[in-house]
């Protein structure tokens, strides 16, 4: 079995690869932009880091947009989106003056309000950086063994809001906004946080992904 991490030039893929190798020593983990290798893999990870315009642009430039759209509709192939890899699944992001995304899940990507303050009157920082509690909204095989309210590591300024409640798997409340930090539909699960950097909880989620048969 091969797990392909799609390398379209954005993001730190090595952390993701190392974490998946750690939880599934028997699988082959490959970082690739080769369409045949990605098609041949049994599972796929769509990472993403930085600005969404660049991520969408690089996906286009590496001629992988069509393939990723195909993969999203393939109900037999589990796909995990991480960080901007989650945001890219929405219709549209308001970042960089508005960027059209892959349109797999109805929803949008907006920015946290950096003028919001907490109960003590302290300003809430943007980017939202650090360990926050993720509340599980719907049951999902990827939550197996992870309690609701568990902390995961985040670093982002923009967040996802899906239109369809069925797609919202987990959320946080930050700076006056509810962010859907875990979303899922069919064989696709996508998270805003970094499971590869979220210690035991993150490794458990990756282990669940590796054994998930949707």
């Amino acid at each position: 079995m091969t797990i392909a991490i799609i390398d379209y030039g954005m993001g730190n893929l090595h952390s993701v690869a190392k974490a998946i190798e750690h939880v599934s020593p028997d699988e082959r983990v490959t970082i690739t932009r080769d369409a045949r290798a990605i098609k041949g893999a049994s599972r796929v990870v769509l990472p993403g880091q930085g600005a969404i315009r660049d991520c969408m642009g690089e996906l286009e430039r590496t001629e992988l947009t069509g393939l990723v759209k195909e993969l999203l509709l393939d109900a037999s192939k589990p796909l995990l989106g991480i960080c901007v890899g989650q945001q890219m699944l929405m219709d549209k992001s308001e970042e960089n003056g508005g960027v059209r995304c892959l349109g797999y899940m109805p929803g949008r990507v907006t920015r946290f309000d950096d003028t919001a303050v907490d109960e003590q009157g302290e300003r809430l920082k943007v980017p939202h950086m650090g360990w926050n509690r993720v509340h599980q909204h719907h049951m999902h095989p990827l939550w197996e063994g992870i309690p609701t309210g568990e902390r995961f590591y985040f670093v982002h300024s923009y967040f996802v809001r899906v239109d369809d409640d069925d797609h919202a798997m987990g959320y946080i409340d930050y700076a006056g906004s509810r962010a859907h930090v875990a979303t899922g539909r069919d064989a696709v699960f996508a998270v805003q946080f970094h499971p590869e950097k979220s210690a035991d909880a993150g490794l458990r989620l990756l282990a669940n992904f590796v054994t998930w048969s949707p």
Partner: protein
Amino acid sequence: MTLAKRIIPCLDVDRGRVVKGVNFLGIRDAGDPVEVARRYNEQNADEITFLDITASHEARGTTLDMVSRIAGEVFIPLTVGGGIRSCDNIRALLNAGADKVSINTAAVTDPDFVYEAAERFGSQCIVVAIDAKRVSEDDEPPRWEIFTHGGRRPTGLDAVAWSRKMVEYGAGELLVTSMDRDGTREGFDLGVTRAISDAVSVPVIASGGVGNLDHLVAGVKEGGADAVLAASIFHFGEYTIEQAKQHMARHGIEMRL
């Protein structure tokens, strides 16, 4: 508010070995960074920062190898700082498994480098180190300036204005070190921490001067820091990260326990 404040142990690394703290006790002679990172990870550290003090350019490969080995078994964020001057440096570190890089002197000599790095790799992985020293007299309104070269060289830059500029240029986080307090164990300079934290929208890490656990509490509560960085109180085995977290939580600070 559920976002936890962070505790970040910091290791000084020279040619791939920990050189400060741990070896003084004789417990770990020239400690292996992988071993130390593993220990802090077990103690529930929220992130780990490495300060690469390797002087020679040739020895940088050892640092990359170290980062790669740590990233293979410690699954929390890793920041590497020290001597980062080019996007190639950053790319090599990120490829080795670092999550963030901390830019110090190069930001002062060439602010555009911060802009370029943030454009290329995203603000989320660009930390700018602010080394500040108080330059005002006791009876004046407090003012801090940026110093480089370990606090020896003044730059004439106002620390608060400089911090704002670095955020405009794309810094995703600021590591604020008081050069007056560094190594004193008298606690953070809460004035400069608060002044910068209030001036910018991005998270601020307080650093320099921690001698006990109350200092960590003050860094967050009075200094307004989002994370606290310390070295010697953890290296010498005085406190574990877990003890520090419990202490902060008892003082009403949201922590990941």
